[in-house]
């Protein structure tokens, strides 16, 4: 019997960590012991079976296997080098894409269960593709079964808000240039700007006209630009943007400006007709969020590098379709754990309130999954209004996310936290243990199809996702 630790204990001086009733350690304090008091949070939602399962995942030797796998996941995520290589047309470049297929944000869902904004975007997509001329026709077609729906994530793509991708849309092509997963490619459409836009479920003429401009002008101009100038390292842009007040999800002003600097000269040189290039430059410069559709596939590309690592318990996907929230775990790629999409705690544009809000929607939570967005709230003082209004609240938020992640991204530094790396790699075990859900920055879509954005705020996944994931992890480890 090993008596060394017991002997060490009774030798003192005693220092202890106390959880629970305060009076239990009163005497110890009176006796001069060093007492660290801890705030207790019920783990695993207080469910006895899950708690036992969770305890096992933290117990060696299994814990050592999981920890090692999560470290590999973190390393792969860090060593990946997502690079913008070009622009293509969805039907030609996205794996499995076809004319009768519409991609959408979040986990799989049927037309019957789709929320207003997603339905609106699909109506708009069908009109845009010329498959319907009126919203009624589009709805009938969508409900007919002749059109297939599939999550963007099943095709290495991501889409903000409704995330609708149809076959004719131009898409960014992002390729991993380094590490074990070099060659992985991810995709995303080009950002339409704010106001009435397809991704918020708007489908009027203005929306369709803009989509046509993107297809006929913006896509080809940027395609020629990229072919002429060569690849752009996206992580470098993200790293700089974080130093300039962006968090990479709700605040994209610096990143868009940096991208603009990279693109503008080459657009003039390789883009084609001067008038077309001017229109495109104007379009990009007026859209603060233009880079979001690049940081999202960048994040997807980083996380793809973690997929399939046995025993890893970090998340590789968080995504919402407006009805359901879905997550995926790195060791079980392709398997969704879902629960109801939540309402956003937010601030509204004038004239709108909670009543108008649709539950959480979009693949953009891929940014938080990869360790930026709300996880870097402390980097974006301009939008601290969303987390309570003070800069301290934002710093606290980033620190809090540090508790549920397995490491830091040394490239994505947060100046206000002493250039600490962004908290990266959301561990299902830590979320369950700390009773702390990941926080996501997001826009709020109107619940009716066709209205658009009504505000922005913070949201978290529902607990169901994590409870299911935990159960599945345990089943997998027991198998």
């Amino acid at each position: 019997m090993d008596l060394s630790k017991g002997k060490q204990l009774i030798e003192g001086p005693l220092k202890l960590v106390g959880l629970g009733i305060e009076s239990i350690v009163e005497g110890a304090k009176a006796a001069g012991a060093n007492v660290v008091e801890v705030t207790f949070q019920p783990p695993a939602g207080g469910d006895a079976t899950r708690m036992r399962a969770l305890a096992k995942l933290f117990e060696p030797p299994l814990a050592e296997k999981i920890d090692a796998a999560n470290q590999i996941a973190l390393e792969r995520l860090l060593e990946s080098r997502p690079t913008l290589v070009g622009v293509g047309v969805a039907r030609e470049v996205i794996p499995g894409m076809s004319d009768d297929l519409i991609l959408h944000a979040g986990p799989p869902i049927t037309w019957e269960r789709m929320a207003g904004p997603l339905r609106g975007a699909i109506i708009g997509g069908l009109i845009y593709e010329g498959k319907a001329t009126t919203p009624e026709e589009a709805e009938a077609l969508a409900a007919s079964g002749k059109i297939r729906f599939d999550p963007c994530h099943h095709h290495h793509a991501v889409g903000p808000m409704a995330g609708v991708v149809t076959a004719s849309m131009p898409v960014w092509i992002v390729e991993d240039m380094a590490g074990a997963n070099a060659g992985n490619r991810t995709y995303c459409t080009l950002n339409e700007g704010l106001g009435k836009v397809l991704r918020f479920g708007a489908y009027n003429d203005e929306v369709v006209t803009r989509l046509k401009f993107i297809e006929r002008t913006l896509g080809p101009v940027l395609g020629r630009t990229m072919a002429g100038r060569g690849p752009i390292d996206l992580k470098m842009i993200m790293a700089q943007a974080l130093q300039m007040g962006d968090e990479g999800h709700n605040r994209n002003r610096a990143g868009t400006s940096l991208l603009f600097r990279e693109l503008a000269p080459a657009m003039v040189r390789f883009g084609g007709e001067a008038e077309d290039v001017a229109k495109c430059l104007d379009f990009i410069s007026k859209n603060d969020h233009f880079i979001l559709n690049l940081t999202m596939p960048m994040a997807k590309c980083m996380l793809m590098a973690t997929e399939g690592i046995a025993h890893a318990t970090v998340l590789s996907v968080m995504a919402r379709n407006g009805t359901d929230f879905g997550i995926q775990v790195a060791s079980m790629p392709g398997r969704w754990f879902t629960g109801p999409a939540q309402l956003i705690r937010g601030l509204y544009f004038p004239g709108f309130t909670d009543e108008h809000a649709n539950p959480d929607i979009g693949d953009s939570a891929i940014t938080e999954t990869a360790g930026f967005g709300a996880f870097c709230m402390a980097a974006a003082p301009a939008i601290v209004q969303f987390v309570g209004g003070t800069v301290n609240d934002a710093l606290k938020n980033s620190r809090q996310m540090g508790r549920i992640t397995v490491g830091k991204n040394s490239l994505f530094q947060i100046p206000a936290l002493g250039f600490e790396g962004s908290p990266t790699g959301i561990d299902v075990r830590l979320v369950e243990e700390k009773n702390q859900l990941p926080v996501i920055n997001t826009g709020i879509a109107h619940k009716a199809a066709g209205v658009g954005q009504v505000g922005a705020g913070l949201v978290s996944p529902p607990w169901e996702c994590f409870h299911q994931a935990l159960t599945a992890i345990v089943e997998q480890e027991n198998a």
Partner: protein
Amino acid sequence: MKEKLVVRKGAYHDSAFLMRVTRQLKGISNIFDAVVVMGTPMNLELLAASNFMGEALESVTPMDMVVALRGASADAIAVAEQELEKLLQGGEQQTGDESAGLPIDLTTALTQNPDAQLVSVSVPGTYAAYVASRALDADRHVFLFSDNVSVEDELALKTRALEKGLFVMGPDCGTAIIAGVGLGFANRVRQGRIGVVGASGTGMQELTSLICEQEGEGISQAIGTGGRDLSKAIGARMTDLGLRVLAADPGTDVICVVAKHPADEVADRVHTILEGLGKPVVVRYMGNAVRPSTSNVFYASTIDEAAQAAARLARGEPLTFSKQCSGCGDACFKADKIKEGRVIPKRLIGLYSGGSLAYEAALFLQQKGIAVHEPKVAMKSSGPIEFDGNLVIDTGEDFYTVGKPHPMVDQTVRCELIEKVGADKSVGVLLLDVVLGDGSHADPAPELVAAVNAAKAARGSDDLLVLASITGTELDPQDLSRQKAILKAAGILVAPTASKAARIASELLA
């Protein structure tokens, strides 16, 4: 209704900031609507949708801030404008400490304090095993005060702990004194040469207090193990570790074991361990027949005797015990003297706060041939006494404490029962315990006195004898002498130990 529409030229603010300003202005009483936005075309549309229109908006640019207010009166609008000014000034106090207010969780605390050897756990029982398991993951000892932990969880925790050479003191471990520091309910004792391993909270408190207060010796360590450690299922896992650590401790000369009703085969196995420790050992097993002592393992018949024996061994004196009640001092407690010629009803009721003390009293009385009942449901706080005969009641039993603090902390339930039982003319002897020390009620005697006085007043006759024992030391925060004096002044007889109180009670019934 009043409206105000103001454009501030070149006053740029971020949209997220303005959304918060808008929300705060809307919250002002008598303000019906408020919009503060930059003058972008999209925002102007939104303003129009909220019925804010006017000439002022015609030359607005996206670099201008538009303030639109609608309220019940000009005053309300003025208040909103003042608030707007304040918000635009900004500059909330920054503490500079970004983790201020962020709660510390267990793993963070353990990472930040690598030198903390022990985790004290008193969270609700459902979560206790999880927390204890996490402490073991981090290679820390556990003091597990929580109860309602299953035997399976206890076994798993202790098996793992033992593999790592770590203590899991508990579950349901009320007391420990480690390196001079009391945990849970513990009395403040002098440092000394006697080490204790105990599966009984108040038993350990009584033993350690008596060793100091009565015998003038001191305690090196008191290692709690939880009440079930000597059961067949748990097999004395932590008792074993505790004994071996004390055997190896140069600060411990004599080892004491106190436990309630161990399983015979476990007691046999523990005896083998005790024989091999190389130090003199004193054992008090409550509820079992006293085992035959051997050359270096002495089995005592009461906690008092165990305390005496340990002290003598620590001083190197022979183990002889006087049958005289030498420690009683002034009280002397002759039954005749106490009764002063009164005829006392021959019914006894004990109302205890300490579980082991109640247990030992009931055992003692039964050994003296006095039938005692220990009801397994809670006695009601009023009305006639629902149970027949002599009763020993532990008000710390689960059915008294569901959703309530322990009677050692909060005496409300016990005091109600004192009033009810003491007022009943069929009862002649009321037996109480008072447990002092850290964690316990800060000043128990006055409340007990008030309850006893109320009972006597309701009773209207002076044929009730109240007998109390106090577990505690002069070092305890409640002040042992003062507590004693308060009880005595109210006519309550104070016995020096719980088992002596029970003995005197038995004589009073004779």
